[in-house]
């Protein structure tokens, strides 16, 4: 399966799961909202250009936004993590070897510790910015801190489960 087709299917699946499964879960608490859709951006291949990465991030966010009725709320954090992703990756991995031999970020291609750090940082930044926008609209500091922490933890748990359930074969590029 080509990388493009695979990512288009992933895009649709992540949006459907977020809208029709995770958003329909009865809320446990005000601070705990399960988010998983941005894992799509984390999983995108290495070889996408920076501008395209942000445009894809924007599309992902705005698609979810039209389902939740808040155009722009999820698009902004998605663009932010798409913007940060290349910087973070270049910091965390030896670029020449990994980006040439593997297709996309995973535990196997980056190593356990760098990959977890990469996921944790992007998740935190995403939620921090998302809740910041909400906070500016409503204003309550305990809400801000509580929701950033609660949502980040639940998202990390969901990502961990997803990584275990859907084990991605770390494909070698052909010439490596």
């Amino acid at each position, binding site marked *: 399966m080509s990388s493009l087709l695979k990512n288009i299917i992933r895009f649709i699946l992540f949006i459907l799961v977020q809208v029709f499964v995770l958003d329909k879960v*009865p809320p446990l608490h005000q601070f705990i909202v399960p988010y998983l859709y941005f894992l799509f951006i984390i999983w995108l291949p290495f070889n996408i250009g920076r501008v395209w990465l*942000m445009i894809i991030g924007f599309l992902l966010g705005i698609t979810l936004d039209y389902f939740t009725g808040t*155009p722009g709320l999820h698009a*902004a954090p998605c663009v932010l993590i798409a*913007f940060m992703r290349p910087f973070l990756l270049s910091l965390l991995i030896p670029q020449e070897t990994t980006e040439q031999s593997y297709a996309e970020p995973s535990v196997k291609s980056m190593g356990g510790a760098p990959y977890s750090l990469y996921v944790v940082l992007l998740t935190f930044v995403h939620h921090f910015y998302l809740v910041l926008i909400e906070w500016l609209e409503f204003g309550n500091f305990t809400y801000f801190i509580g929701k950033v922490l609660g949502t980040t933890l639940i998202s990390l748990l969901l990502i961990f489960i997803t990584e275990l359930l859907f084990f991605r074969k770390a494909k070698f590029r052909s010439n490596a």
Partner: protein
Amino acid sequence: MKNIFLFIRVYFTFICFLVLQVLSIILLSNSSKSHEAFFASAANEVIGRINSRYTDFTSYFTLKEINRQLVEENNRLKNELKADFQSPDSSKKMVVDSTLKDPSHHFRKFTYLPAKVVGNTVSSQTNYIILERGAKQGVKKGMSVIGPEGIVGVVIEVFDNYSKAMSLLNRNSKVSAMLKNDNVSGSIEWDGADPSYLTLKNIPKSSKVAKGDSVVTSSYSANFPSNLLIGTIAAVGADPAANFYTLKIKTATNFFSLQYVYLVENVFYTEQTKLESTQQKFNE
């Protein structure tokens, strides 16, 4: 000139980032105010269609609850039927008025339109409801949405075949309400915490408030018919410094299993809101 191009080329990624960020924020801040946002209408038609596929499937699971609500509503309405009441003096002869027009000049203020709920969230801070009725079926902005058990929200955006309503469970929602006992009015808001509880503010401490009292829509509201149930008082909170109660209201409507609602149009809506807005200009 050359330097400008050079600058754009060097910072192209960053400029793209800024443009997309600003676009998102503009979309967000305009979303509820103008429905002319670009491609919003087309996007919402598509989303509405996907949502209605999903609800077609899930509606089977809530049929039992919907039936129960309908039976309860029918029961309530049947209890109000004129035929159930005996006039006090049966010996008196009824005089049939021959005039065709109703002499007391009754006129219709509210019209009702049934609608199916195709999209509904409760987990976010700004919850909206997508309804499968739009401008082609006569839905207008500002119509109120009521369920079989109590009120639900207000229509804020209208597309061709779908419309978007702001649910009571929205941080921006504000509905005029009153206590059923002594007609003291206040405003219903949501604090974003629990989807089954609302907050009623601005009830003066002079009014009698007890746990379990009904809270209904007030007659001041331009959207809602008066005396529709919103909920019952679950807890009475009083700030000793303030002159007002802050009441916790258990919602009458179960927002988790919303399937069918009625859209209510106030025929005099534009007239009433126009008057309210001119009054505001006076105050400024």
